[in-house]
């Protein structure tokens, strides 16, 4: 039976930069996928694009592509599928084109998947009656309309398949559902129909398992002490057969571990109802799959079932919501927790005295049971980290806040230390607004470069 090997070398923007190289070289891959976009990454990229129309994509991908130059020459059949395009897949593809041409890969075509960016059409869509109500609260979008910075539909696998059909060997997308980076290649290679629900569901399970990179190969494992050589953790490969059964593996000789437990932990990661895992392609039922260890660090997953997807795409909206900052100082005992709370509150009091009050503020004593509050019985830890965070619409007030940590080293309780990294940074807050939109209102496009 035909099989296709899809390895994911990047689980988020900021993930290990060497992992994609190692996976491409040693994974015997048909496809390398690279996943860069979290819910809020799009808003950051949107702001970058506003400032510079040639930016707005995950720049890390271009560094990876440069380093992969000779590997791509040596492995002409290996393709790449990535959502690195972010808010600007075309600009990302143009830069990728230059890199491919300069590294002896001029013959490789780039497929560009876009149409997910609904920001340019937002008012047109609202006027046409698409209210983009908040999925959690039901509120309509218009009260925050003026603060919206990005609106992206999560596209499905169809345009990725189209790009592959048109001989793209590097596919660069904007916002697509993460699992689709795997599902698209599986559909294309096996010639499945998009409505072959159970097989599409199977590939969706595979995509979900590998989309967070090392989280399925030993990262975050509750049995962390027993994971071999986690420092050299291998990134995951889904080896998918034509009937939809697949194996999760990693390159031989790498660190980490794959077993029923790592698969189970990742299967349920960031999931609501496991019988209804929603993607633009399918509603996958995670409770039907069986997981079997077939060799060391090889798990076989079979029995995936699904139901047809809905007529809506999920839409991720971000809007400006003020500014935030947080800082920490180390506070030694005795009475470390009480001292830390005293110092944190005093920091806020000093700002109040000069007329600065924050809409939201929060003092934590990390190490005294406040990472998860309300659980740990009281005890006297030898030291804690005092952490103070604020959020407010006034950038000036938040900037002033960042200057109140250093004074505590001389005017706070005894022993305050840890002020070596300078003042904390001020960050703009982009609030998250999930919504739905009719699929018919979204026009996905595929271009070849």
């Amino acid at each position, binding site marked *: 039976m035909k099989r296709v090997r899809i390895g994911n070398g990047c689980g988020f923007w900021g993930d290990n930069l060497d992992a994609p190289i190692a996976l491409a070289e040693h994974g015997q891959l048909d496809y390398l996928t690279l996943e860069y976009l979290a*819910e809020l990454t799009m808003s950051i990229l949107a702001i970058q694009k506003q400032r510079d129309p040639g930016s707005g994509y995950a720049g890390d991908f271009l560094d990876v592509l440069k380093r992969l130059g000779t590997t791509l020459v040596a492995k002409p059949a290996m393709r790449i599928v990535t959502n690195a395009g972010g808010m600007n897949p075309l600009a990302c593809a143009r830069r990728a084109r230059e890199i491919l041409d300069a590294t002896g890969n001029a013959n490789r075509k780039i497929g560009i998947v876009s149409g997910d960016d609904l920001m340019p059409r937002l008012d047109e869509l609202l006027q046409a009656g698409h209210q983009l109500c908040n999925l959690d609260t039901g509120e309509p979008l218009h009260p925050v309309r003026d603060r919206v910075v990005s609106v992206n539909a999560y596209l499905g696998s169809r345009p990725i398949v189209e790009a592959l059909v048109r001989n793209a060997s590097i596919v660069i997308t904007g916002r697509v559902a993460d699992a689709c980076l795997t599902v698209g290649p599986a559909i294309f290679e096996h010639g499945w129909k998009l409505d072959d629900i159970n097989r599409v569901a199977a590939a969706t399970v595979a995509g979900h398992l590998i989309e967070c990179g090392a989280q399925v190969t030993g990262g975050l494992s509750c049995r962390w002490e027993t994971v071999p050589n986690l420092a050299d953790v291998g990134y995951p490969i889904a080896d998918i057969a034509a009937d939809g059964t697949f194996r999760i593996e990693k390159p031989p000789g790498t660190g980490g571990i794959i077993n029923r437990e790592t698969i189970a932990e990742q299967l349920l990661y960031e999931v609501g*109802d496991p019988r209804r895992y929603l993607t633009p392609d399918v509603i996958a039922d995670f*409770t039907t799959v*069986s997981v079997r260890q077939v060799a060391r660090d090889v798990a076989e997953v079979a029995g995936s079932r699904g139901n047809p997807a809905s007529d809506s795409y999920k839409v991720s909206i971000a809007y400006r919501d003020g500014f935030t900052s947080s800082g920490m100082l180390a506070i030694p005992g005795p009475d470390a927790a009480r001292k830390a709370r005293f110092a944190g509150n005093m920091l806020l009091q000093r700002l109040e005295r000069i007329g600065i009050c924050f809409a939201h503020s929060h003092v934590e004593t990390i190490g005294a049971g406040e*990472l*998860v*509050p309300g659980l740990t019985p009281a005890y006297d830890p030898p030291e804690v980290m005092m952490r103070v965070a604020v959020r407010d619409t006034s950038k000036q007030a938040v900037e002033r806040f960042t200057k109140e940590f250093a004074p505590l080293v001389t005017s706070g309780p005894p022993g305050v230390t840890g002020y070596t990294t300078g003042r904390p940074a001020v960050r703009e807050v982009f609030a998250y607004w999930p919504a739905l939109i009719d699929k018919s209102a979204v026009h996905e496009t595929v271009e070849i470069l």
Partner: protein
Amino acid sequence: MSQLAPLSTIAHGRSGDKGNHANIAIIAYTADGFAWLQSHLTSDIVGRYFAAYEPSSVERYEAANVLGLNFVLRDILAGGASRSLRIDTQGKSLALALLRMPVELPEVHESMLRATEALP
């Protein structure tokens, strides 16, 4: 007779965020352990354990195929990844916290413990 032990004696898990909601997967090491979880680790108990977060609701889903229970605690992330002022903006630490929960296991519970690796 029974004895008090942390939930991690018979289970492992992982947690993460969905906007302002968190999910906590608790996975038994064995079928007997899963049966124990099914009857003892109710959404009420989990909700009370995390009462300080004031969840608006706690739903429990079963994934018996992987011996897992999945809890969804709604509205507990103080605004979620971008807005929360907590150090753990995404609820990553919640599964570990739940696994620390002292539970009353039957005196004889060897069949709930993780078996040593037996590779094919």
